[in-house]
């Protein structure tokens, strides 16, 4: 974990309201693992005040990408940053996705901007060519569907679900997961999920029903990012855990909904 200056290599809008920022920051990039996160100080003013957390979208040598949705003051401030600007980075923080020990089949379930850290995970998992990876991306509509081409470009089977049916199936990502598991038998994949709370909950439900190993990446408001302030607690079967230090990835069977 380091606090370091990063240099912005690029920062562009990839879809209306969604930006992709490339940052060169060797000490952080070299140590980062998929599923870990970083925090960025979005300006030098007292507004926005706290650093904002982001997953590593892609990790490559001395640099990494952050894929973000413009949601509030912090992310809005980020959109005005340009290539060449310096940026205050703290990371890598938290724990990454655990390895799918010995398991060949993997299903990645993404919802909305939750797809961001799952791209890095897919790239890492692909290093073992024997793995069979499927990705399910859920989004509100076609306009907010992210990363489909990226996963397809990696040669990964990619299924899409949208709330309004404007792309892929008109259903939730968790419905596609349920169907996939029902159709392909025997199929005992490890599931990795990141997205809105209700989606992760639905994924946990499917995993429990089928007795599958499943991990989800969680979000909370983060202040320190290092486990000092105890602000990002979430309830688990073994008491409160910190999203920043114990997570952000948790085994879904540990969670209380």
């Amino acid at each position: 974990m380091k606090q370091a200056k990063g240099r912005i290599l690029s920062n562009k809008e990839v879809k209306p309201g969604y930006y992709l920022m490339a940052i060169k920051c060797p000490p952080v990039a070299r140590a980062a693992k998929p599923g870990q996160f970083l925090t960025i100080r979005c300006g030098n003013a007292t507004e926005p005040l706290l650093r904002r957390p982001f997953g590593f979208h892609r990790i490559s040598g001395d640099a990494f990408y952050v894929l973000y949705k413009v949601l509030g003051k912090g992310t809005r401030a980020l959109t005005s940053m340009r290539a060449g600007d310096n940026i205050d980075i703290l990371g890598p923080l938290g724990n990454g996705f655990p390895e799918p020990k010995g398991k060949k089949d993997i299903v990645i379930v993404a919802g909305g901007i939750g797809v961001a850290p799952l791209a890095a995970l897919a790239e890492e998992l692909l290093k073992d060519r024997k793995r069979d990876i499927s990705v399910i991306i859920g989004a509100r509509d076609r306009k907010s569907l992210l990363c489909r081409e990226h996963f397809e470009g990696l040669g990964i089977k990619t299924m899409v679900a949208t709330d309004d049916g404007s792309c892929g199936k008109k259903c939730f990502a968790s419905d596609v997961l349920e169907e996939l598991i029902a159709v392909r038998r025997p199929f005992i994949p490890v599931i990795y999920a990141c997205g809105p709370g209700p989606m992760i909950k639905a994924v946990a439900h499917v995993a429990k029903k089928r007795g599958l190993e499943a991990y989800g990446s969680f979000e909370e408001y983060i202040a320190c990012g290092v486990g000092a302030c105890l602000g990002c607690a979430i309830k688990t079967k073994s008491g409160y855990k910190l999203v920043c230090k114990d997570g952000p990835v948790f085994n879904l069977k540990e969670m209380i909904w």
Partner: protein
Amino acid sequence: MVKPDLKVRIGALELKNPVTMASGTFGSSGEEYKGLIDLNKLGAIITKSITLKAREGNPPPRLVETPSGMLNSIGIQNDGVDSFIKDKLPFLAKLRTAVIVSIAGHCVEDYARLAAKLDKVKRVDAIEVNISCPNVEGGLEFSKEPGSAAVVVEAVRKSTGKPVITKLSPNVKDISEIALAAQEAGTDAVSLVNTFTGMAIDIDSRMPVLGNIVGGLSGPAIKPVALRMVWETSKKVKVPIIGIGGIMDYKDALEFIIAGASAVQVGTANFVNPSAAIEIIGGIEKYMRGKKIRKIKELTGCLKT
């Protein structure tokens, strides 16, 4: 010019500089920050408040950002005093900075027992008595009236020979009256201010944002009010004051010192910039060189009015 003298005294305790880490913002021992900053450069680490028995803390969400500030309702989550001594002190024992342990209780007896336990622990340099946590049932009660504050301070004073610092709440009619009562009851110093009780509401769900409904406001938003309280208190009490409230950089820290604080605590700034305290120490030193001030003590309470 010789190196400026940043040393300050809090009762019998000497700090190498006036910049300390506020309780609750720097973990139970500061270990979380060991790879990020040189902990040995700090004036002191004030640990997360501990209670006699472990506390689970409040339901999430526990924090939310507000304009130039943040609300928290952690609820003094901690593993209890015994586990603190066993698991956290060994790390603190290795540091070359002052260790101030913050204690919180539900009744006077709790405070007395905590102080008595810590009195036997060599590495504890001082005790900060948190009578001002807005996030615990009854947590604010002792700091509301001069009489009740005095009772807690007296009980702690009788239980330990270590320097005692009393942390005061700004959620009172006249904080200087409480400070005066703490002084008469034997505190070696007062630290002010703790957070201001506040809240935030989600207008879509019409629910409070915090799981605990209300929380404590900290950060730059509270600085002018905290500064005024330090100034008013400094006119009334003789014991050293440790100023707290939205200190983000060395200029903020100097404002508190000029207003009458002998030392300061950095809290919310640790979240924004883990290096804030180290930068503040450097900034104060540079300011002193520039103004040819030899001792930081010369600055305390030098406000011209």
